[in-house]
């Protein structure tokens, strides 16, 4: 029986395993160094905040794996020998494979800041990171202040976490407005205000110069590049993005760049070796307007769904549909469908319609083609919208007028919520008159 070995028990590794099992009888082994069972990385914050316990973040009961004949092996793969098709583990274990899937995810970026490896300085990615933040910041007596470096999705989650335990947070963001490499101005500005409303000390256009140590090798303070100001703190969260977690592949024959290089079929340069999820990098450029590395939950899952078909003898290309994503900034829910670009990197044909509610917790941005008026995408904050509807409208290539007029159809807010579509439409019509 063919043995499929998957390194990584995250969403991509687990999805490919589940779908291979559905379609075949192959022997499947999932390897991970992190935890015994698959858990949802996206829920790490809720454990620290006390909404859930760790076991609640495990999407499948522990008996699921045995029932589905998916073997789990805990251990860290140090090297891969592709000629003999063997994995070598720390501690000397060896595992042979017929087909190998690399789904090793990401690791937090560290940009060589002085002091970045001190006790108390850490990223937020793994279960181990969660354990260490629990150790270093259990309450606001042990951790009198925390500094977060890097204004992205993980940074804001870390801020929310610390806030839930009343630990004062200083948030250093390199950009002059929060996440404005991805979000248009109006939205980014709304989030700036929302962060400050939560009494988080947001410092825009601010960089970390160094992290200072106390006599025990623990974080004592940080220094800001621009002003030289020193801020005392007990924890430094390093959340300036993530990079593929592939250092252990450097000695193998598998070709890598920033990530493991794969073609559209998710194959590496070595036969029978594939890569999916955060660690995979498309070698022929991003698909459509996508990036070559897509470090999000849904894409990892989709790659897993596709690769399972290939491995089970139905070779398929990874051809994701319309882009979508979602996140939450403290109390602001965010969803996006299609493409809405920030000021930086926006195609010259892309124009925006922006609506913001006076209570400053809801806004939308609709992107459209300035000549054809074709609808390109939407960002929505504080109003839930229906994935299926936008996916259909994008496929049907609707124009922006149609989308704005039919917005009620896409509404996904709970029943009895106030609706804003009329207001949005009025603003939209108004704008066309004044322009």
């Amino acid at each position, binding site marked *: 029986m063919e043995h499929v070995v998957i390194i990584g028990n995250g969403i991509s590794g687990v999805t490919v395993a589940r779908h291979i099992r559905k379609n075949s009888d192959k022997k499947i082994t999932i390897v991970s160094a992190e935890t015994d069972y698959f858990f949802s990385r996206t829920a790490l914050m809720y454990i620290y905040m*006390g909404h*859930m316990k*760790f076991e*609640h973040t495990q*999407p499948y009961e522990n008996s699921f794996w045995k029932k589905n004949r998916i073997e789990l092996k805990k251990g860290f793969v140090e090297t891969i020998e592709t000629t003999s098709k063997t994995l070598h583990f720390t501690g000397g274990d060896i595992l042979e494979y017929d087909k190998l899937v690399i789904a090793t995810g990401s690791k937090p970026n560290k940009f060589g800041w002085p002091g970045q490896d001190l006790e108390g300085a850490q990223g937020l990615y793994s279960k181990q990171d969660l354990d260490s933040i629990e150790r270093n910041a259990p309450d606001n007596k042990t951790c009198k202040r925390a500094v977060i470096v890097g204004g992205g999705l993980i940074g804001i989650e870390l801020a929310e976490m610390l806030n839930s335990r009343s630990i004062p947070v200083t948030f250093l963001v390199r950009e002059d407005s929060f996440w404005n490499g991805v979000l248009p101005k109006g939205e980014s500005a709304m989030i700036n205000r929302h962060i400050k409303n939560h009494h988080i000390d947001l410092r825009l256009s601010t960089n970390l110069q160094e992290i200072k140590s106390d006599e025990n090798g623990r974080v004592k303070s940080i220094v800001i590049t621009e002003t030289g100001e020193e801020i005392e703190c007990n924890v430094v969260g390093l959340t300036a993005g993530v990079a593929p977690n592939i250092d252990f592949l450097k000695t193998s024959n598998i070709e890598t760049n920033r990530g493991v290089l794969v073609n559209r079929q998710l194959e590496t340069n070595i036969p029978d070796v594939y890569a999916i999820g955060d660690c995979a990098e498309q070698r022929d450029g991003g698909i459509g307007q996508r990036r070559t590395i897509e470090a999000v939950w849904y894409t990892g*899952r989709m790659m897993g769904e596709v690769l399972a078909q290939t491995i089970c003898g139905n070779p398929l290309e990874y051809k994701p549909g319309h882009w979508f994503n979602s996140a939450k900034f403290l109390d602001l829910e965010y969803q996006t469908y299609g493409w809405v670009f920030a000021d930086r990197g926006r195609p010259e044909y892309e124009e925006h319609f922006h609506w913001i509610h006076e209570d400053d917790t809801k806004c939308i941005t609709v992107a459209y083609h300035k000549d054809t008026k074709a609808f390109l995408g939407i960002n929505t904050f504080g109003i839930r919208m*229906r*994935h299926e509807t936008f996916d259909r409208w994008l496929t049907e290539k609707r124009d922006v007028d149609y989308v704005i007029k039919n917005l009620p159809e896409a509404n996904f807010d*709970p029943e009895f919520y*106030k609706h804003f579509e009329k207001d949005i439409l009025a603003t939209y019509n108004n704008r066309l008159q004044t322009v």
Partner: protein
Amino acid sequence: MSNKIDHSMSLASPDALNITTKQKIALAFGLVGLFILVLALFNVDFPNRAVFLTLSLGLVIGGTIVYSREAYLTKLEGIKNDGVWFKSLTSRGVLGWALGIVLTVFYIVLYFFPALLGLGTNGEANTGLVALFDPLSNLLSGNNASQWFVYGTLYTVAILAFGYKFMLKYRHNRYQQLRTGSVMFFQTAFAFVIPELMARLNSDDFSLPYNDLKNMWPLNYYAFDQWRVDQFINAQTVGLFFLILGVVMVFVISPYLTYKYGKRWYCSWVCGCGGLAETAGDSFRQLSNKGVKAWKFERWMINSVLVFSIVTTVAVISTFLGYDSEKYWFTKGVFLISIGVFLTLLLAGILYYKRKELNKSAFRGAIGYYILTIAFLVFYSFFDLSQIKINASYFSFGLNQNTYNFDSALRSFYGFGIGSIFSGVIGTGFYPILGNRAWCRMGCPMATIMGIQQRLFSKFRITTNGGQCISCGNCSNSCEMGIDVRAYAQKGENIVRSSCVGCGVCSAVCPRGVLKLENDSMDGRINPTEVLLGNDVDLMDFVNKN
């Protein structure tokens, strides 16, 4: 395992005490209010009961209001679940167990030893706690209080005070606010004030049974007991109206509303048990067990209770129809046959029209329970139940030495086992251990009936938003009915489950806006998928077809 777990077993957990000074004062006021009740319980005779009762209830309500305002209004609107798994009270820590024990003892005393609460027996005046409530009872119904009046008042106070708290907690969510307003209204008006006022109408030649209009059979298992039916019939037009309304509710109104809106119209908007669970019990919703084993147990348990309640009610009715046949429109035979025919047609219809939606175990279960029920009906038709004597001491550890007729034995056993122990002692007393809807999930026969209908004939479902789920688990964690919502959401599948009471909290707490409670057409309501929206269209077609 979370490293925080041990903290919850410790009373000294810093998280549990992480409340402001204002909250501590509010808590103190509330406790003083409760303390007055405790003093009354121990027979401290208050000089002016009306004043002390008002003071006591006022302090409890006021304390809760101030506490909640401080907890929620000082923060921005949003999900407020910080620390629920750290706090001793809400994570089965010492405080949780302590509260569970206190509540359980209270229920046992209430049901079985009301004299301990000060209920006057044999015409004696009330003393203690019950006496403290006399002034309020006199104000409403003109009679002195009973232990049930005390309980009803405290119950209503709890729903009102904690309902207010819940509304603040979800002040960004109008669905949550409206349905909470609704249960607060139904509890206060229908379960509490109106029946008490109606008692004023009673005189020597006119009397209506205590009637909470919204409390339907089979939740209200004594709805068709002989004394009630007789009282209704004797109360002429008004009584007949209520009796017929009771039947129409069960067979017409409830099925119609459940078809249109799902069982939530009752469980989360009207019901008193649900009302208490959603307000006072809200802090314990995460404690329900989400495991597959619990689900299996639930299905077995809840259907058995339904069968038990049906055979009991039929036994009771057929017996009094049997020996008192001139008094009623039905005879025993007609009654039993019509029940049998009704159940047979119902089952045949379901098996035929819904055969595709029933899996093997559901199919077998339905047949099994049907045969059991019919066997009872046949048995009733051949025997005069009032002639079969049963000595209760065999079934009550000798506590009860009486001998009962078969029908009253069933009826007493149901009242004791299901009505008192299950719905009261376990259902509410165990909130801090089993979660706030253990009764609704495992025991309520009314929920079973509406649940079967919700699963098979209802427009209600929880829609999953395409591929947006990140499997975080907040929804499952918050589901008081123990539904593993995430298991559906992460497959892009709608949630159509008989046990869902439509509380909407899963949708409220989802950080990605994945879930929406909806009433829509029946087609495509159940949509199993393998590959989620967002992937290649061809792949989705290819895999989801198979």
